[in-house]
């Protein structure tokens, strides 16, 4: 009995040892790929950082106000953020490559699918980034225009513009990722349409007088101009 158990044990250990011997090279390969990937990711991160510095991403982002927003959210500056992102993307790719080296079929399939999606993810991230830049830029422009035009709710206008652009950006990013395409499209259309309709109603009904004034200015310039002049006269000192 002892002999059978020992023999079984030997056979099992032997099989295990054999499997291990078979598996070990793959693990080694995986570890090497992990390490190499880490080094490459660092190198790519440095290169990407340099390229982005050349492309003045920092000043672009500062110019549009994105830096301030990231700062508020306790996030690092765009350059750091993006270069870190590049590092992680490259290393994750190598990680996946490494895992693929284990030669597990199921894993293989999933990893290939992941690699196929990777470019789309990239593009979606770029869309998001540009969208955020644009949202900041235009919302600030709207804020300034509204403030200088003496509109009382300038911040609301600015926020609204930012919201709209971000919404559009997200929709575009999702579209790019081909995630729930139809749902996103329909949701976006409804949301956008509803917003526009409510704006129109608000303007036409609630802001009747303003609408009238604007139309007069367009089609009856003299009277409107005169009124404007009187108004200006009462409130402003001519700067020149």
């Amino acid at each position, binding site marked *: 009995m002892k002999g059978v158990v020992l023999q079984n044990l030997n056979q099992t250990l032997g099989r295990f040892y054999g499997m291990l011997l078979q598996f070990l090279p793959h693990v080694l390969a995986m570890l090497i790929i992990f390490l190499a990937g880490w080094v490459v990711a660092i190198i790519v991160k440095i290169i990407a950082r340099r390229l982005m510095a050349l492309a003045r991403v920092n000043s672009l982002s500062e110019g549009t106000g994105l830096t301030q927003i990231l700062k508020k959210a306790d996030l690092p500056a765009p350059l750091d953020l993006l270069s870190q992102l590049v590092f992680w993307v490259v290393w994750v790719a190598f990680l996946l490559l490494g895992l693929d080296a284990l030669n597990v079929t199921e894993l293989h399939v999933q990893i290939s699918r992941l690699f196929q999606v990777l470019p789309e993810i990239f593009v979606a991230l770029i869309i998001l980034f540009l969208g955020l830049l644009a949202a900041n830029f235009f919302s600030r422009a709207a804020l300034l225009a509204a403030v200088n035009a003496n509109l009382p709710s300038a911040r609301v206008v600015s926020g609204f513009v930012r919201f709209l652009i971000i919404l559009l950006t997200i929709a575009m990013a999702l579209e790019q990722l081909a995630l729930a395409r139809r749902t996103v499209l329909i949701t976006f259309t409804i949301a956008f349409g509803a917003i526009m309709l409510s704006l129109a109603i608000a303007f036409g009904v609630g802001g009747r007088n303003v609408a009238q004034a604007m139309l007069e200015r367009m089609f009856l310039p003299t009277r409107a101009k005169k009124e404007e002049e009187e108004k200006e006269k009462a409130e402003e000192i001519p700067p*020149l």
Partner: protein
Amino acid sequence: MAGREGVPAGSQLPEASTISEEFLRQLTAVGEVDILVGVPTFNNRDTIERVVSALQVGLTKYFQRERCVLINPDGGSTDGTPEIFKNASVRDFGLLLTSNPLRTFHRVSAPYHGIPGKETALRTLFTAADLLRAKACAIVSPDSLSITPEWVDSLIRPIYRENFDFVAPVYQRRKFDGLLVRGLVSPVVAALYGCKIRELVGPDWGLSGRLACHFLGKDVWEEDITTFGLEVWMTTTAIVDGFRICESFLGPKIQAAKQYGQDVAGTVRQVVGALFRCLDTHEEFWKTRGAPEALPLYGFPYDVALEPIPFSKRGIMDTFRAQVDQLMPILESILTPQTLVEIRNMERLSTREFDYPSELWVKTIYEFAAAHHRSVINRDHLLQALPPLYRGWVSSFVFRNQKADAANIDQKLEALGHDFENLKSYLIDRWSAEAGGER
């Protein structure tokens, strides 16, 4: 063919010329002139006749022997302005204490090519001055209600007889008129460029043919420059390039309809934007420039009682508070924390206590200038953030000096000018500061 001294002959005619064939034909008929007076127009039917008559009498009275031409580059008027220009005439010279002109009185009026705007009109005039080899030029605004024949003498004589190159006008202003120029642009230029010019945005000028050709040869025409931008550029370029500048007293400044719009925000943007761009271009010059010198003043300054400008106290204050509040996030990118704190404190003051101290105003402007130079945010956005602060300063200045007379106000503005001079080093420090670090 010999050119004017220092100017190579025939080198300035731009390829994409603003001069139409008709214009050129009329110029050919005129031939060489000694004096060129330009009146750019766009729908000025109400005032142009008076302006032309005043100029004609002025030229006859003061420059009877000189070959003169009156040129009207028109931006496509639809109200008959060019026809009025051509037909305006003086019926009886005897009543104006001058005899009939010795020479043919030349008048050239034609539309110019290019984007309608005073900048294209000025380029056209400079080209005409070059083609006609004019020794002295004057540019006169078409809607000056206070123009007299003496303006011709005031703008041209220093150039034609005294060899100056640039004559800046001096007007008798209403009490709080033109504070953007008197409280911002002029003191900055005086402090930095070392030249005290009271009116940097004209719109009436005298300049030598030499200077007109010099302007023509610059690249500024290819850029997207605005009217006020061009005038600020002209003045600062004349200073930097070493031309002889003087001032000449013209009298009260009363203009007809606000041709260029007295939209405060837009005007501040244009004028200050132009000023800041000039500071960028001329950095090497103004950083090493010394204390400002006063310019020779021609003419006999006098005072005339002018009706004051009406404005609303409460309205301006409320606007200021609301606007500054809403723009805080943007101002944080532009101004230093100290300045920001002071502005916040100011915002909280009541209408009666409200005061925008001179030193704070100077620092505000200099910080804006430095931020503009470093492009901390989009430059156009930066300039749009200034008008509310400008309004605040104007309100403060006006409230504090309501009872003062024009002479006192001039003194206050003079003192403000000294503040700008004294804080010049502050600007130089801010100019080259690292972005993000010092804030």
